[in-house]
């Protein structure tokens, strides 16, 4: 048996990996950024946002779900793939109601940070402007569905780490929405607590702590000065 080194090429650079790692994990571990939204190192990959799209040996796929294999030729930072990523972001923006100037997450938001980094100048598509429910029933947290991108990170965190299954997705297509596991459907009547992992995992401003607001002003926030592509390796992976 010949020893093939555990390494693949990402945009022409060799990336070492541990067997079992995904392409995204191996790339991030070696300091190479691939845009992603629904992937998180603590949770099983979900493969739904497709921001992490790459071309592997001439076929496209989600790098958060594809296993790294020796000798793969992977392309990520190409004009074509970045254009597709911008289109995906634009679809996420028009599908929800993202009024960034009024959002407490602005500057700390991964969706917005990717839009900055990929120079998304406009939303391109016709805005849905769909009414979505806001739930302020919990004493410590808001749930603003206007900004939810259905990444299921809160669903995975609550189910797999908190052992509570507070969150779930229901409906299909444009009716897809986040639901809360309680008799009234309200967060305040659920088992959700501010110490839950699910309380600190949302990549956007959908699950937000109360009484924080703009304590840290706009302009001094995580992604205000430094692009997410440079911060991804040092950030604390918390929402």
């Amino acid at each position, binding site marked *: 048996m010949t020893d093939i080194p555990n390494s693949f090429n990402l945009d022409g650079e060799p990336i070492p990996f541990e067997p079992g790692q995904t392409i995204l994990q191996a790339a991030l571990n070696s300091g190479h950024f691939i845009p992603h939204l629904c992937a998180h190192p603590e949770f099983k990959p979900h493969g739904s946002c497709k921001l992490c799209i790459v071309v592997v040996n001439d076929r496209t796929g989600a790098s958060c779900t594809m296993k790294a294999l020796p000798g793969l030729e992977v392309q990520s930072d190409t004009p074509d793939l970045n254009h597709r990523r911008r289109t995906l972001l634009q679809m996420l*923006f028009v599908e929800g*109601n*993202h*009024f*960034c*100037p*009024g*959002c407490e997450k*602005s*500057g700390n938001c991964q969706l*917005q940070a990717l*839009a*900055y*980094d990929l*120079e998304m*100048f*406009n*939303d*391109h598509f*016709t*805005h849905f*402007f*769909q*009414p*979505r429910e806001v739930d302020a029933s919990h004493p410590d947290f808001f749930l603003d569905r206007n900004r939810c991108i259905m990444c299921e990170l809160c669903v995975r965190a609550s189910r797999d780490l908190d052992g509570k299954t507070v969150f779930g997705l229901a409906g299909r297509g444009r009716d897809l929405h986040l639901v809360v596991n309680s008799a009234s459907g309200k967060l305040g009547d659920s088992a959700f607590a501010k110490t839950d992992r699910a309380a600190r995992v949302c990549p956007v401003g959908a699950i937000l702590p109360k009484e924080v607001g703009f304590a840290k002003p*706009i302009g001094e926030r995580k992604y*205000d*000065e*430094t*692009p997410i592509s440079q911060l991804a390796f040092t950030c604390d992976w918390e929402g």
Partner: protein
Amino acid sequence: MNVRPPMKKLKVATTSLSGCFGCHMSLLDIDERLLELAKLVEFDRSPITDIKTCGPCDIALIEGAVCNSENVHVLRELRRNCKMLVAVGACAITGGLPAQRNQRDVGEILQRCYVDMPGAQGRVPDDPELPLLLDKVYPINEIVRVDYFIPGCPPSGDALWKYLTDLIGGRMPRLDYQSFRFD
């Protein structure tokens, strides 16, 4: 920044549709560079000149979203007359703050504000001089074709200056990372 003056001064029109004039304030915020801008361009229809109708122009800067029939009329007039239409700021690009009414029915909002609220005047204003409200508030690119977009709420003076000097200089406009903002 050095920009070679064009052979002929470019004509620029600006307007605020449903906006707060914040983007125009940012334009004034380029401070002494206004003098340099005045060497490069001449303002046509704009709140700065108070000219009310637009002649043939090279660049139109549009602040604000489209919320009533007059906004539609002004936007179409600028599109007809200007070679390049630039959406400036969150409201023009995404609907912004004015579009926060889009989740509700416009009739219900008028009823609530002018009739039902304590202290309301008791009837929805219907003076024929008033432009009719649209059913929803629209970003300008959902009404006319738009050539360029400068994000920000408002974009900073530096962002506007960089973008405009790129456009005037015939370069593909870019913003540096710190100037590229949605808030």
